[in-house]
């Protein structure tokens, strides 16, 4: 897909002015965020399970080569065709090759962020195939010629009114005056239209939430059932996934599944969790004749042994973006590439380069909500800080920011100087601003004061207050 991560700042300006987008995003706090909190409250073991989940993933990643080979041995023994793809280009070519060999014309797709990452749809369409997204959110995004703005709720940026208008514009064979004023009518219309596609598709492509080494299976987790129809009705089932999805055993998967749905949508469990192992068996009356799994690297292996190895634990639940104040203000498209929100701010620079995505790790106040809800306990703010450090070390960040940081770090490394300067500044600002309590404008702070007042210091620094309180306390 096209990358606009370098244009993050202008993307943000446009997003903040987009009234439709702001209306759509307003539902996040009462929706996914509140639902996750309720699900967590119902399961007393939730926090302890996060530790277990983190440990499972750490163990797997530390032995990633062994587990990938163990999974592959099992998968091949059940009749799966395993394809390894070092890059996005490799993955695209492997999949179009499978479609060509199957004489395919129509391809249905379940939801897959890895397929977005490799730009699969455009590639298959260029090869002359009709590609139909079957997850409702993905279908909406497809008919609008957009990309998903969220990893589990791709159309979260759209309002009901927009969706109704899109259906009327796109489904011109249906009566113009049909009622579409309720979500249930829109869903029914999509069901009718996509049913035909499921039945006539030649190849069904899904992603995978997990690969299980013990059994050689791939797993999809969905609510709509579209992934199951996609992979069961077509002659060929292709799974596109990545090396970080493998886990050892069914016990390990059980723990991770307990965390996934609750963190993602606040459901106790998603409606459908499906394990697929090999193609249909000799005695099976249905199921695909061929089962291919394409395992993508695309920059992930390079994270092993680096501070960013921890990001490979991610199970793509979306909790970090649901809880992020920046994502909540600007939505997913502003991030300019496949993975938005805090996980994107850490992952995208690794996958598309820091030069392209350097604004993303800077789009955070380090409030820490993402890390506090991450089921895999990925230290997202710390990893964003690591990217900022690397950006500065490589000479990035802009002249003004570098000069300011240079001055600040010169002082910060000289505590006496720093305290003296801080006392001076705080006393001065306190003297001017104390009576009003805040500033409407101040030199160099336009980015803050354009939208809100800046609280005025009260005259003494934290260090001063700390020293005084210590003196005042009985020993």
């Amino acid at each position, binding site marked *: 897909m096209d990358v606009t991560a370098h244009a993050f700042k202008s993307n943000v300006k446009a997003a903040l002015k987009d009234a439709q987008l702001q209306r759509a995003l307003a*539902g996040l706090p009462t929706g996914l965020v509140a639902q996750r909190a309720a699900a967590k409250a119902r399961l007393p073991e939730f926090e*302890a399970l996060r530790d277990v989940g983190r440990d*499972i993933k750490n163990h797997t990643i530390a*032995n990633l080569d*062994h*587990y990938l*080979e*163990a999974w592959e041995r*099992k998968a091949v023994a*059940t009749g799966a065709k395993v394809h*390894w*793809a070092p890059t996005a280009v490799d993955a695209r070519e*492997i999949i179009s*090759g499978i479609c*060509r*060999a199957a004489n395919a014309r129509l391809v249905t797709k379940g939801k897959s962020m890895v397929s977005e990452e490799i730009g699969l749809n455009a590639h298959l369409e260029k090869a002359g195939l009709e590609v139909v997204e079957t997850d*409702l*959110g993905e279908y*909406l995004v497809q008919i609008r010629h957009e990309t998903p703005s969220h990893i589990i*709720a791709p159309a979260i940026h759209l309002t*009901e009114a927009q*969706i109704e208008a899109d259906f009327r514009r796109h489904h011109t064979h249906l009566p113009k005056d049909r009622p579409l004023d309720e*979500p249930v009518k829109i*869903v029914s219309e999509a*069901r009718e239209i996509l*049913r035909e596609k*499921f039945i006539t598709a030649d190849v069904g492509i899904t992603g995978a939430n997990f690969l299980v080494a013990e059994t050689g299976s791939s797993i999809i987790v969905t609510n*709509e*059932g579209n992934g*199951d*129809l996609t992979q*069961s*009705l077509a002659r060929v089932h292709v799974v596109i996934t990545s090396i970080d999805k493998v886990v*050892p*055993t*069914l*016990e390990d998967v*059980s*723990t991770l599944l*307990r965390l996934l749905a609750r963190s993602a949508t606040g*459901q*106790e*469990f*998603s*409606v459908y969790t*499906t394990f*697929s*192992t090999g193609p*249909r*068996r000799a*005695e099976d*009356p*249905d*199921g695909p004749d061929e089962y291919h799994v394409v*395992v993508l*690297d695309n920059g992930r292996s*390079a*994270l*092993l*042994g680096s501070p960013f190895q921890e990001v490979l634990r991610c199970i793509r639940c979306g909790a970090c973006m649901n809880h992020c104040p920046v994502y909540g203000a600007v939505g997913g498209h502003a991030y300019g590439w496949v993975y938005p929100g805090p996980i994107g701010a850490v992952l995208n620079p690794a996958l598309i380069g820091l030069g392209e995505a350097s604004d993303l790790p800077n789009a955070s106040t380090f409030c820490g909500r993402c890390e506090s809800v991450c089921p895999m306990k990925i230290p997202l703010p710390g990893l964003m800080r690591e990217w900022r450090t690397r950006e500065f070390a490589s000479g990035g960040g802009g002249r003004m920011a570098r000069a300011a940081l240079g001055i600040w770090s010169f002082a910060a490394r000289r505590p006496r100087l720093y305290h003296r300067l801080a006392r001076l500044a705080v006393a001065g600002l306190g003297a001017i601003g104390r009576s009003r309590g805040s500033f409407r404008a101040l030199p160099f702070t336009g980015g803050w004061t354009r939208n809100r007042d800046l609280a005025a210091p009260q005259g003494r620094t934290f260090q001063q207050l700390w020293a005084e309180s210590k003196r005042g306390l009985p020993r």
Partner: protein
Amino acid sequence: MSMPGDEASRREKVLGAVRARLGRGSGASGRESVEERLQGQPRHLIPGRSQQDRARLKALFAAQLRAGNATVVEAASEADVPRAVAAYLRGQNLPLALRSGDDGWLASFDWSREPALTLARGRADPADAVGLTHAVAGIAETGTLMLASGPGNPVTVTFLPETSIVVLRADDLVGPYESAFDRIRERYGRGTMPRTLNLVSGPSRTADVGGRLVTGAHGPRRLCVVIVG
């Protein structure tokens, strides 16, 4: 189509990069502990709610399914299943036409007790209104059914019809997912799975239109679970 040689070199590229970054030497360090773990399948923390007596598990199972918009009915014995199924379909004003695979247990019920019910066997086609399947296990923890695909319960019967009726022996109710997977290991052998193993926790749903929950997306619009015994 790519050549087999390409496939081998791509495989070596990916796995070689992983090995190099993990600092593997010439030996296969760590492989034994990995094999041990794959064979031993250690259990992790299991929520307390999944470790209760059978009556509580059954109540939890039904409550969780109902919370997910499924219907739960109980049949005292196998002889009562046809009547329970017919009563559900009549109550919903649905056609009394069932589609099922050749599951021996489902076939053993005395369907002639409900002469109005018709029963077609084999994989489902898009015209089928009601699918009838037999779950391997019911998982109380989250009100989840476990269905194994095959001639007995074709996967199309689970997903194509608008209404899904799943019959479950009360004895096949377990607490956590782990216990249900143990049953799969017993039935198919360790490390072996049916083509698809489906965990189903309700009728299909979506919240992709304005974040509002709608039941009945692409899979069944209705799910009725019959617990026998």
